[in-house]
């Protein structure tokens, strides 16, 4: 019992981080309707900023750096500057990304926040290096700020610092909740999230009100993580970014609307993880569950929360749904399909070594990205689990080929079916939730699969998850032969398999199934009213998408000869989603772009080898995606907007403006009058 108490209090350090990040997420959702996946990245920057300041007083900026004083900065000023950097990032994200997207559909906002998340994380890796800071980032640790005192309570040793962190979390949540409840600006902020225009008509500025919340949550998240980091452990360029996943889970427990519940759930989750960690060291604890339990809990929490509270999680129904990205229904013409196929075949023959390898990787990634196109672009379900499906299939492939000796084509089929089953399971929450909340559930699922399956030592033999080389009818289709890194046979096997699947996918999307997908995407209720079986269509989408991703995962596995978990991390999955969105998430050609630009693809190799920009890769992908989301929005026709802007600029000069106006001012064109009126007055 004493042990449990002791470990529960230890868990308050991570619990405080979950609580404050979760309370921040709820606050932002109340204020703006955005589910901000970048909350952890903002805190990540703050932690590194503080560490750099306390190492030698370097203030690292996105470009350049400033030396504040000649030596290490003292503790509290460094903490304040670090937390303020969180505030600045948060405000910048508001002004540059989320404010322009405030009327965009949920997909655009989720993709944008994932883009910000990747962007800041990539920037942390780049900027906090030896050149900028003057110290080795590997040797940097978050120095303690809070007191190291302990006291004994009922036989348990309790660290005062952890209690202070829990207190900070409660205070931060209470402050945020009181702001929304008791102050007029807080009430106005809630109102602005519901009907921005009505609020503006009352003389408020919704942007300024939202900015207050963005700034406050950025500061509080930064502050808490900076203070908790020494108790949690080391400093690495990823971990705090992914703390957003448990934080999202507790935000969901708070139904995205209760700051207090989210805070309490965060503290409990932190304590629970620590207790489980402690229990998993006991001899009676099953060995298969000894790793990754902590990371699997958020997914369990999400699933339980969804089932218990499913109906209570708010839909932002009052907000305008916003225009969805337009869809180009794929039309299969023999020539248009054969030409790129032939070109790819020729390219495979002409290349060799790592270029051919990256070409084949591009082909495989195209298949994985096509699964994103199907599920997210066509069906409108924001899933961040794609790479986890692929990895699960690869994992199954390793077991099937090494343990059960299942022969080649059957092995891929069975493994992909394993992924399909997993996809259906992950798709079940989608029957109850949609939009950003589904993204939360799926990223939690991906993280759970990653740490509980891929990184679980009891499921992986010490030799690694080997995969036997494929062979058919006595001919080896192995990826390597002698010194050849990638054989022609293997390359063509991949090309044929992906081409067949893509053609089948194109047929499917251009037919009745594709139409049903699009109907569900644009309006579930209307689709149901028109006779579409919405749950069945959603599960079908998840099943097909995970099957495609599963085949992709098997091909990746075969190309390596063993399952490397690094190919299937959540981060890789997010990068693939980013690349697909940038390429065009509603068309198969977008998947091809994603395949070329995705990790280890041809453009990746070009970027890393020829241009030697390898370390900038994630940053570039994230930046391109953000530009695509915010500036070159797929849901918005570029030209009419631009033309209108030109005309507005010319408005003070009536003679020029009239010359540029497309419709003659004389005589009322009936349709031009009717259409806007009916659209806006209805």
């Amino acid at each position, binding site marked *: 019992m004493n042990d449990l108490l002791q470990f529960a209090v230890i868990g308050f350090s991570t619990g405080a981080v979950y609580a404050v990040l979760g309370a921040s997420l709820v606050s932002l959702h109340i204020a703006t309707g955005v589910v901000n996946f970048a909350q952890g990245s903002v805190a990540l920057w703050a932690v590194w900023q503080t560490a750099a300041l306390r190492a030698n007083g370097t203030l690292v900026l996105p470009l350049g750096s400033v030396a504040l004083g000649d030596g290490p900065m003292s503790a509290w000023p460094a903490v304040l500057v670090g937390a303020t950097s969180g505030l600045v990032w948060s405000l910048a994200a508001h002004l540059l990304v989320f404010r322009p997207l405030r009327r965009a559909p949920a997909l655009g906002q989720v993709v944008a926040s994932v883009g910000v998340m990747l962007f800041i994380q990539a920037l942390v890796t780049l900027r906090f290096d030896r050149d900028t800071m003057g110290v080795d980032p590997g040797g940097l640790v978050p120095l303690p700020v809070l007191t190291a005192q302990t006291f004994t309570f009922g036989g348990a040793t309790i660290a005062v610092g952890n209690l202070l962190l829990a207190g900070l979390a409660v205070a931060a949540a209470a402050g945020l909740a009181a702001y929304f409840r008791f102050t*007029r600006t807080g*009430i*106005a902020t*809630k*109102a602005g999230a*519901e*009907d921005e*225009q*009505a*609020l*503006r*008509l*009352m*003389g*408020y*500025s919704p942007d300024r009100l939202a900015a207050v919340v963005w700034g406050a949550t950025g500061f509080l998240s930064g502050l808490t993580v900076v203070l908790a980091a020494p108790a949690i452990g080391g400093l690495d360029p990823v971990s705090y970014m992914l703390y957003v996943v448990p934080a999202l889970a507790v935000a969901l427990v708070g139904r995205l609307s209760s700051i207090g519940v989210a805070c309490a759930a965060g503290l409990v989750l932190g304590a629970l993880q620590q207790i489980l960690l402690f229990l998993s060291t006991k001899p009676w604890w099953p060995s298969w569950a000894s790793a990754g339990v902590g990371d699997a809990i958020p997914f369990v929490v999400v699933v339980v929360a969804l089932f218990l509270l499913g109906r209570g999680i708010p839909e932002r129904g*009052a907000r305008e749904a916003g225009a969805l990205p337009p869809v180009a229904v794929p039309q299969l013409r023999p020539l248009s399909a054969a030409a790129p196929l032939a070109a790819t075949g020729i390219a495979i023959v002409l290349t060799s070594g790592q270029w051919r390898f990256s070409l084949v990787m591009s082909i495989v990634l195209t298949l994985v990205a096509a699964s994103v196109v199907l599920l997210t672009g066509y069906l409108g379900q924001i899933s961040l689990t794609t790479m986890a499906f692929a990895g699960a299939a690869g994992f199954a492939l390793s077991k099937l080929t090494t343990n059960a000796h299942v022969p080649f084509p059957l092995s891929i089929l069975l493994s992909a079916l394993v992924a399909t089953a997993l996809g259906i399971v992950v798709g079940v929450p989608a029957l109850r939730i949609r939009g950003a909340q589904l993204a939360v559930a799926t990223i939690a699922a991906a993280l759970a699969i990653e740490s509980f399956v891929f990184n679980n030592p009891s499921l992986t033999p010490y030799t690694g998850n080997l995969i036997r080389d494929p062979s058919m009818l006595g001919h080896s289709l192995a990826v390597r032969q002698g010194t050849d890194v990638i054989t022609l046979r293997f390359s063509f096997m991949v090309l044929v398999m992906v081409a067949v699947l893509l053609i089948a996918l194109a047929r499917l999307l251009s037919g009745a199934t594709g139409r049903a997908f699009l109907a569900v995407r644009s309006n579930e209720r209307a689709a149901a009213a028109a006779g579409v079986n919405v749950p069945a269509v959603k599960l079908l989408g998840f099943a097909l998408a995970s099957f495609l991703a599963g085949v992709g995962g098997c091909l990746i596995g075969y190309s390596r000869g063993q399952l490397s978990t690094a190919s299937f991390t959540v981060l890789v999955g997010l990068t693939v989603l980013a690349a697909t969105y940038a390429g065009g998430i509603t068309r198969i050609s977008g998947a091809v772009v994603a395949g070329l630009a995705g990790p280890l693809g041809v453009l990746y190799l070009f970027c890393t080898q020829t241009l030697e920009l390898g370390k900038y890769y994630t940053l570039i992908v994230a930046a391109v995606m953000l530009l695509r989301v915010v500036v070159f929005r797929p849901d918005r026709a570029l030209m*009419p*907007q631009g*033309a*209108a802007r030109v*005309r*507005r600029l010319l*408005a003070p000069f*009536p003679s020029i403006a009239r010359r540029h*106006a*497309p*419709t003659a*001012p004389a005589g*009322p064109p*009936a349709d*031009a*009058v*009717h259409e*806007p*009126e*009916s*659209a*806006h*007055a209805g």
Partner: protein
Amino acid sequence: MNATSPTAETPDASQAPDAPAADRTDDALAIRGLSAGYRGVPAVRDIDLQVPAGSILALLGPNGAGKTTTLRAAAGLLPVLGGSVTVLGTPIAGRVEHATRAGLCLIPDNRGVFHRLTVAENLRLARSKDGYGPALDRFPQLRGLLNRRCGLLSGGEQQLLAIARTLLLRPRVLLVDEMSMGLSPVAVQRILPELRRVADEDGTAIVLVEQHIDQALSVADEAAVMHHGRIVLTGPAAELRQDRARIQRAYFGD
């Protein structure tokens, strides 16, 4: 800047309502030659409307005539593509802030009440020095609903709340868009006289967009009928009320 600004800043009740429209210098709301629309395409053209303090203008017309567009442009929600809108001498160049600061309030056709806030919270949003007491004095029906979420109110109650909240802002110019949308004629009958009282007692200039022609004309001083983005008929409300045939013809664009 409008030439009428010096006197328009201090509207008084002693203006002559029967003076010719073009010559009035004390209009609380003056719309001159306005063209406005969406994405640079005008939906209304050459709108001229003047509303003196303390008077009500009924803006009528069939669906798609441009009534809402006119109000939205006057409130600064739409860019002005041509002509001008002035509120008490302040030009509203397509900026909501200009309009609200000059004392203009628009009640949009969705009523603009916040469904997730309680009635009390909705009323608090109006930055009123006296709190929301005056609103409850004017609409005592709201007193028992203060802690209820606005989304749970009936349409008529929501409309009362929208008007009560807007009046707390003490508007000099009040634009009301399709107040009767989704309301029974009886509910409209109850609310319209309130607006008349506001115009008479507070000297507020009111523009009322309505589909209930007769009820609107019964409280209005002036009326204007729009068709296809233009004003096709104006006149004193009492006169038009007697001559329904003229309004009917204007509705059909004759």
